[in-house]
């Protein structure tokens, strides 16, 4: 009887002490919103993915993506791309004859869950490096912990702050709002456009864009004549558009993730806005085309080359890897990969490339990756001690929506 009672207490006690230990083990102060590890349960379900074919001990890597919640349209393709590439890597013999094993976790698009997941991966699964997460908030929380644990991390989040300021061992694959802003401004310069209006989401992604646009506009001789915001869930943005219509802006820049930009494009047509709309890479996918319908004709967009794989120039250094990735992804999942799948693909490729150059020693990964040059599906990565994103705005393209399809602008 006593024994049973003891057993009943044992589990909660163990969990509680685990939480306490991991919370204390953090050392440095993690991001404010990321540290409140309230609950006792371990986050998400883990799914060991690699089959242990080789006799040698596998290299264990963690991967945290937003598989459910608001960021799931990002996280799901990322995981699919990573699974596809993982199989290919292990079939080719892994790294130094050792297979790579990935433990997947779902952060539920939540900052706290992401930090819980990375703590679990470190303490329970003993991973040597981590991929993820999909969103900027969860990634920033994870980066704080990963940096304090000297755990190499490659994020798939857009926000510039993930790798700015640079921290040892923390890298990211997607284009940032800085690249997007500069690429759009270059285009505007070519067209001789100097007056812009912005209508950005008030979430971290859109606010990031607002900041970068403010910062770089003077450099390109551009004046912001209206700077409006909308809430992610707002059903209508027509008042903001009415205000913009009353200004002498020559073009409207919209930064947000779907469905916001699609709603704006539709309403702009209803209000007869009359100026071109340029949308950010956050909305550059087939869902956008589906949502806007024929109201989308003529909308411009800044994006990675993966958005129009069949229009990439054959002489482009990225052409080969993009073709290989798109073909493989289509064969496996019967759908076209989007930019997010590409971020995941590049992330694992970079990690494996780094591990190979470090001779399988993950502790050297942080230093090695700073010297890695890698041509990926997102762009040509050239990391350095000052740049842990490795991309430039030249790897982005401008596209126009024509006949319901994305058309590359030369």
């Amino acid at each position, binding site marked *: 009887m006593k024994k049973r009672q003891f057993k009943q207490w044992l589990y909660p006690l163990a969990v509680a002490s685990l939480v306490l230990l991991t919370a204390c083990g953090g050392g440095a102060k993690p991001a404010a919103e990321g540290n409140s590890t309230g609950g006792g349960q371990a986050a998400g379900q883990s799914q060991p993915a690699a089959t242990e074919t080789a006799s040698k001990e596998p290299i264990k890597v963690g991967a945290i993506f937003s598989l459910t919640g608001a960021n*799931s349209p990002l996280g799901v393709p990322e995981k699919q791309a990573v699974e596809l590439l993982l199989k290919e890597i292990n079939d080719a013999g892994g790294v130094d004859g050792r297979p790579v094993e990935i433990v997947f976790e779902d952060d539920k698009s939540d900052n706290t869950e992401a930090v819980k997941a990375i703590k679990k991966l470190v303490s329970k699964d003993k991973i040597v490096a981590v991929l993820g997460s999909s969103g900027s908030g969860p990634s920033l929380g994870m980066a704080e912990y990963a940096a304090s644990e000297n755990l190499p991390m490659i994020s798939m989040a857009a926000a510039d702050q993930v790798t700015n300021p640079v921290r040892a061992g923390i890298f990211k694959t997607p284009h940032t709002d800085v690249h997007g802003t500069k690429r759009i401004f270059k285009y505007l310069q070519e067209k001789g456009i100097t007056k812009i209006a912005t209508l950005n989401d008030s979430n971290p992604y859109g606010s990031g864009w607002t900041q970068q646009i403010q910062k770089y506009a003077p450099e390109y001789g551009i004046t912001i004549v209206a700077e409006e915001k909308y809430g992610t869930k707002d*059903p209508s943005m027509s*008042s903001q558009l009415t*205000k913009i219509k009353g200004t002498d802006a020559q073009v409207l820049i919209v930064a947000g993730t779907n*469905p916001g930009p699609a*709603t704006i494009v539709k309403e702009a047509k*209803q209000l007869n806005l009359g100026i071109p709309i340029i949308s950010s890479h956050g909305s550059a996918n087939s*869902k956008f085309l589906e949502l806007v319908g024929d*109201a989308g004709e003529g909308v411009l967009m800044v994006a990675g080359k993966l958005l129009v794989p069949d229009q990439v120039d054959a002489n482009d250094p990225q052409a080969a890897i993009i073709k290989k990735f798109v073909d493989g992804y289509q064969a496996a999942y019967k759908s076209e990969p989007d930019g997010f799948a590409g971020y995941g693909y590049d992330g694992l490729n970079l990690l494996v490339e780094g591990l190979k150059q470090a001779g399988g020693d993950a502790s050297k990964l942080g230093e090695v990756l700073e010297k890695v040059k890698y041509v990926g599906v997102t762009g040509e990565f050239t990391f350095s001690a000052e740049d842990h994103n490795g991309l430039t705005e030249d790897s982005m393209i401008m596209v126009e929506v024509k006949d319901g399809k994305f058309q590359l602008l030369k």
Partner: protein
Amino acid sequence: MTEFLQYVANGLVSGGIYAIVAVGFITIYNVSKVINLAQGEFLMLGGMVAVAMIGMNVPYVIAVVLAILLVTLVGIMMQKYVIAYVKKANPISLIILTIGISTLFRGVASLIWGKDAFALAPITSNEPISFGGVMVAQQSLWILAAVLIILFLLWYLMERTILGKKINACSVNPMAARLMGISPAKMSMLAFAISGATGAIAGIVIAPLSVTSYDIGVLLGIKGFSAAILGGLGNPLGAAVAAFLLGIVESLGAGYVSSGMKDAIAFLVLIGMLLVKPSGIFGERSVGKGGL
């Protein structure tokens, strides 16, 4: 001046949406004293079911009618199998129960249709109409038409028919109503059916203007509820007027002050008004101690 009128026009459209939601709240509240916080989910279900059916190649009109009927049925089932089942519970428990149901609806919707947003084709063409420089989407006119028709029908039902009198009787004194051979449970079911139907209509007419997704009901539910409170809970006309007011204040706030602050401005006005007149603009209608 054109700009000002355009803001007002935009505000009238969002106000119209809030008005349908608010009236849905009040219809149920008046009969059963339950504040149905799953009202926003009726909108979501209406829009999503219509989109799903059109996706299965069901003709537009039939899909819309089926979606409205289905959501009406959902409303009836909700009353019959949940609300009526716990008739001894106090109103607070019932309200919390409706929160649970709204979460359930959202969860089920996200399982069936995923978390993506969907577009619905407009009832008539996408071309806007210009009224002396003020641009209005054709769909917006449909929204306003839907609001006016719903308000008129509800007014007619409540004020001009025996059925309306029965509903009123249940709300004033359920015991006396029962003695007169009126079943309060049936009237409550009718109220849920009406709420479901109006909610579905709202969800369908607003979907083409922007997009619809599993979670659009949350924000619209809050806005509609605020309008219902502002107008004086229990008063359909007051709720409709308050809803239009809320929409216009939001739109003007976004236009003349700051778009980042538009919700803050709208709710500040709401709080201010309630501080001055706690029972709402038109005052809470005194409807006895009705209930199930």
